[in-house]
């Protein structure tokens, strides 16, 4: 599974990558972008299966990236997991309204990440089965 990890902090990108590998995802298939703009360009140029993104980033924030993904016919079905320090109600609601697939508040544990990922894939499988 090809995953794009988007965060302006290289430390956080590395931590998320590390956790994903620990959960069994293939390291070479994980790619990184440091803001929404670069992420969107990478998503348009290559086929990815999932995006894990931060909220607060320069140039294009995570919520703007999510909105751009949902607005792009080729990308709109892409699962997006938001991993962010933003925990205020309005922002979580905004992400939900923009069509986020999962929302994790930092700091988080590998167990939380696994739970959210499992839930995303369960929902997608159910959606695929009913479609």
């Amino acid at each position, binding site marked *: 599974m090809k995953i794009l990890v988007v965060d302006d902090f290289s*430390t956080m990108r590395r931590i998320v990558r*590390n956790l994903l590998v620990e959960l069994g995802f293939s390291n070479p298939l994980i790619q990184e972008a440091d803001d929404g703009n670069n992420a969107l360009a990478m998503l348009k140029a290559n086929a990815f299966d999932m995006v894990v993104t931060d909220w607060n980033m320069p140039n294009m924030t995570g919520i703007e990236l999510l909105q751009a993904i949902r607005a792009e016919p080729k990308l709109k079905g892409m699962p997006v997991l938001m991993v962010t320090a933003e925990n205020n109600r309005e922002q979580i609601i905004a992400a939900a309204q923009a069509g986020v697939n999962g929302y994790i508040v930092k700091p988080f544990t*590998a167990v939380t990440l696994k739970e959210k990922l499992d839930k995303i894939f369960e929902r997608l499988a159910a959606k695929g089965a009913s479609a």
Partner: protein
Amino acid sequence: MNAAVTAPAGEALPPEVIDLLNSKDGAAFEQALDTMVRQREQHLFRALGVLARDLHGAVTRLGADLANEGMPDSMINARKHLGEVLEMSAQAAHRSLDFVDRIRPEAEALSQNATAVLDFSRSETDPAAVLARQAQVFASACSEGLNDMVLVQSWQDLAGQRVKKVVSFIESVESSLLELVRLTGALAGREAPVEVAKVHSQDEVDRLLSEFGF
């Protein structure tokens, strides 16, 4: 105006106002009212004028200070130091992650070797088997500890985001100060420069201020 006006309870109107309100001469009433309103307006405008002059003086002094001494060193240093904190904390977090990357495969190899030893072991009391089991326990605890260590490094991201917010606050204070100086220049009749974009360096600050003769 038919009914005689009396002062409402608790709000004693001056006698001349009551006389005026009860006056039958409409023109005199209007004129007196105009005079009163004008007097009030003049007080207000004078107070505003004093305020504007004080503000202008304060901003001009600030502009002169900024031109002579530049943006206060403490402000520039604060931003610089915060930038260094950000960089150093990222380096420290990466070093910890490097350590994890180095040790994790060693822990895995130790566990596999221990398993191989146990497969060939003839008795459970064989010293090699005892050591191998201990090695397995250690390798497993080590892997768990390394995973925790990776997660704990997210402090750098959280602390870093707060530091970035403080840096952008300091930048906005600097920009506001310069904008204030620019406005004062415009008020004083000097030619206002083109829209002030974000000011990023001391050179830009000094160049901007020099446009006003500071």
